């Protein structure tokens, strides 16, 4: 009985987790008599220079504004009071086409207390429906003049010299601009009845043009028609100048995706493209949403969709694929499983239960498979190698470290590899999650980076170098924590850890060296210089030098088991510096990933690693494991 239990626990546990995942992530279907927001989210538009489904636009925008992918309409309620939470697409649809409702929704997250008091926003008070953190467009707009003055002052200050409050102002400004762009994507913002207004404009065009032509020719002209057309033009110019997403698909007249504002401006021009079906369909959707008529909305959506089918089948397919990816949230799910697996593996060290360890390994495998699927899915969506920006580097480092951990576990079968996989997998996915707050994670590549060959070689090699250096460092942390605080680090375990660290450092040296030099060769190909002492190059060079230093110290017998362990933790510091630290200097060719909040975390990480190094240097008599051995 016990044997059967031990044999079957890991697969059964894994099956249960898979079941929960499927249940939690099964794509939701729109209800028949309600607004088809899920289907709406599958419409393709062009934003950030690429075709995106509205679902991604909604999620990325809400992440940028509220730091979450969903909107809580009643944030003052506790989670147990069942607050109403709506998906991002429903929010986006209302911002774009029904702003009189959406402008009252608390979608702006404000954390900085000075900014809260500047904008005279209410404190936390459940009775007054405020949680002291989330505010609506209307609440902020009440004091927009004060804010604009402050923002003008802040904009004159160089980003590196701003205080936390000034950073908050600048960030708020970005969020407000983003929101204003969304409000002007489909219709003129705050238009109470957009279909009627559009129809009026369409009807006005011939008379308006006649009036303008007559006025320019110095003849008598109809002042009312002239003024109305001019008023429309300036309103649409405002719309277009905000540079919102391009929602109108290419048609017979227009060969590229267009902004609504540009299209409306273009219609009265001599060779302009007249107002077409897609503009009408969008207006119908807007009208139906404002009038709260789900059936009319859904049928306008269906009409619009069917006009896209003949010409935009590729964009539709891509949008659908991306929505599926968004709904599955592979990296989030993998992250949750990593936590679970890591805990099981750590428990297995204490009671030395093989069943627990095997369960942990099964779960690590499950998380790894999900992680891999997500990684490959992203690559296919983007048509790019795995690492294209800071966000994807975090995903890839986690993946690489997890793979190395699995390999170590396969050889040593002592739960250490599983903890490495789970630990680094979890941490890097948390980092990726926070990096995603800056916006679209599948942004287009700037001209100089637009080469799949170098992205696939240099970038992958360097990030593999990062991943392996982190694995060595994580192994070293396990050595020190188990050695100092527990009695579980027996001689065999210590030896095997040291051997793992040594092997991984060799591996890391290989990849970081090759990656760094390939980067030099890329630079030689595109700028004519192999090495330019750019901060990111220097960061990578330090990793190579550090790993080389460890190896030479070891070969020269200048360090042994413990020295190796302590040096490997130094690898963590060096790698985090190269990965994030150099970007914070705000100089050089690679300063694309500046994130101020990250600085605090980097500092914290470095300090913690120094503390571990200090622990590692304690005399052996204070190590629980060594005093136990003696």
């Amino acid at each position, binding site marked *: 009985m016990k044997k059967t239990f031990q044999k079957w626990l890991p697969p059964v546990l894994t099956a249960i987790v898979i079941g929960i995942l499927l249940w939690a992530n099964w794509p939701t279907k729109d209800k028949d008599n309600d607004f088809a927001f899920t289907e709406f989210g599958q419409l393709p538009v062009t934003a950030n220079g690429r075709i995106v489904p509205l679902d991604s636009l909604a999620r990325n925008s809400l992440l940028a504004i509220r730091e979450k992918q969903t909107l809580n309409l009643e944030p003052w309620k506790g989670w147990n009071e069942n607050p109403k939470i709506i998906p991002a697409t429903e929010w986006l649809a209302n911002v774009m086409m029904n702003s009189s409702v959406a402008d009252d929704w608390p979608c702006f997250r404000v954390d900085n207390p000075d900014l809260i008091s500047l904008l005279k926003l209410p404190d936390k008070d459940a009775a007054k429906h405020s949680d002291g953190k989330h505010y609506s467009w209307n609440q902020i707009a009440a004091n927009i003049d004060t804010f604009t003055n402050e923002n003008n002052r802040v904009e004159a200050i160089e980003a590196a010299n701003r205080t936390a409050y000034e950073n908050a102002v600048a960030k708020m400004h970005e969020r407000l601009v983003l929101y204003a762009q969304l409000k002007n994507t489909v219709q003129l913002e705050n238009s109470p009845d957009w279909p009627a207004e559009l129809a009026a404009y369409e009807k006005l065009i011939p008379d308006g043009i006649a009036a303008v032509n007559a006025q320019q020719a110095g003849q008598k002209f109809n002042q009312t028609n002239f003024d109305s057309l001019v008023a429309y033009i300036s309103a649409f110019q405002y719309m277009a100048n905000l540079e919102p997403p391009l929602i109108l698909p290419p048609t017979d007249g227009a060969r590229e995706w267009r902004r609504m504002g540009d299209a409306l401006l273009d219609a009265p021009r001599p060779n302009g493209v007249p107002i077409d079906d897609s503009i009408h369909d969008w207006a119908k959707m807007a009208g139906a949403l404002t009038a709260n008529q789900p059936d009319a909305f859904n049928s306008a959506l269906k009409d619009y969709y069917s006009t896209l089918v003949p010409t935009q089948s590729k964009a539709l397919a891509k949008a659908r694929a991306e929505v599926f990816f968004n709904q599955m949230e592979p990296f989030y799910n993998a992250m949750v499983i990593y936590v679970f697996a890591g805990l099981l593996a750590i428990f297995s060290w204490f009671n030395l239960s093989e069943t627990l360890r095997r369960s942990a390994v099964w779960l690590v495998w499950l998380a790894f498979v999900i992680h891999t699927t997500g990684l490959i899915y992203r690559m296919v969506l983007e048509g790019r190698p795995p690492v294209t920006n800071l966000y994807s580097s975090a995903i890839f480092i986690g993946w690489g470290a997890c793979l190395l951990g699995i390999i170590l576990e396969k050889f040593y079968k002592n739960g250490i590899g599983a903890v490495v996989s789970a630990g680094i997998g979890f941490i890097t996915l948390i980092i990726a999650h926070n990096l995603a707050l800056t916006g679209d994670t599948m942004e287009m590549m700037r001209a100089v980076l637009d080469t799949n060959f170098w992205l696939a070689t240099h970038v992958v090699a360097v990030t593999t170098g990062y991943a392996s250096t982190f694995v060595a460092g994580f192994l070293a942390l396990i050595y020190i924590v188990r050695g100092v605080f527990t009695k579980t680090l027996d001689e065999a375990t210590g030896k095997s850890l040291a051997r793992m660290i040594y092997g991984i450092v060799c591996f890391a040296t290989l990849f970081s060296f090759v990656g760094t030099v390939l980067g030099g060769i890329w630079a030689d190909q595109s700028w*004519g210089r*192999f090495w330019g002492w750019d901060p990111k190059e220097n960061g990578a060079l330090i990793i190579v030098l550090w790993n080389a230093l460890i190896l030479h110290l070891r070969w020269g017998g200048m360090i042994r088991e413990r020295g190796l362990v302590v040096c490997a933790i130094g690898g963590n510091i060096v790698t985090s510096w190269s990965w994030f630290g150099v970007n914070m200097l705000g100089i*050089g060719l690679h300063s694309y990933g500046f994130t101020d909040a990250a600085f605090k975390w980097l500092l914290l990480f470095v300090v913690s690693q120094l503390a571990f190094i200090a622990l590692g240097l304690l005399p052996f008599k204070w190590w629980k494991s060594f005093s136990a051995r003696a």
Partner: protein
Amino acid sequence: MPIKKIVSVFTSLKLTVTLLAFSIVLVFVGTLAQADEGLYGAQAHYFKQWIVIGADLFGHKIPLLLPGGYLLGVLLLVNLVCAHIYRFQLTTKKIGIQLTHAGVIVLLVGQLATDMLAREMQMHFSEGETKAYSESATDYELIFANGDQVTAIPSKLLKPGDELKIDSLPFAIRVKSFWKNSDVSFRAPMTQNAPPIASNGVALDFDFMQKPDVKKMDERNIPTAIIELTRTNGSPGDWVISEWTGDASLVEAVQNSYVDQIGATMAHTIASKLAAPQAIESNGQEYTFVLRPARIYHPFSLTLLKATHTVYPGTDIPKDFRSRVRIDNPQAGERREVEISMNHPLRYGGYTFYQYQMDAGQMAEQAGRVPSSVLSVVRNPSWLTPYIGCGMVGAGLLTQFMFHLVGFVSKRKSK
């Protein structure tokens, strides 16, 4: 035995470890310093240097003594070569290590050679323009032209206080001051409260001021000097020579800066005064002179046919920079068109031409400017060494790693 001792020091792993440790510190400090000193400043201070004394970090002066990049590089090279010779064994077990270190030697030597031999220039042109020369981005020359006869004096020779006598010129040049970076402003007739800084030419209408050297990578120094020219029959006084007067884009920038203040017509007059050629007469001959970026003339010419800058739809994110140029090489009877774009340079006549900067596309169109392009022109005889070195080290490390891995796996299996 002192020799044995010296050998044992230079072949020792302890030296390697020390040098590596110092390299890490140097690279780290040299990276931090870039925030204050700029990329080129930090390079000169830390990496292209034998000994580093003192550091400027985050606005603070820090006492510091470090071996510089050159010293560390040379010592590492000596250490490597000595160890290589001394411990060389051709065994399968060691072959990876040997190859790796030989590769590192190639890389170090290659970089040293690059540092000494490579020249980096630029070629600026607008659409339709033909250039048969490249210009330096950092070095300047003082040019005296008398008909076809041209005399070029490198700006390195223009040291304040020096007097230069050159055979081809019937006058001597005394350098009164030389500023690496400078600013210019118009001497408005109403607000003059100081005499002009030189008695002739452009200085009568413009004030030139010394400015701190630039630190950012995308900015450049604009040098200005005051020179006195003395003929046998006495000195007609001094002149200002400045890149501000010679570079068309700088003159345009000055003009634009005055448009708002005094209107387009006046600004244009000011600009034409700034760009007016300066000359000195001697023995009935006229010598025009100007300070301009140092040039290298090529035996061929490039013509910019089209500069294209595309962006992703609806954004400002650059998608592609591309220059279509025609090569004219009368000696080789060659006349063909090529495209130079990011990551796709042109290698021709011992030089490599890279797409560097561009003013084209919508922005240039709206401003009414003729599209133009800047190519970075590099001559680096040792450009192949990183490729070879990287191949050797990569192969070496891989061999060594696989050797260990196979050994490890088979040992595990046999257990």
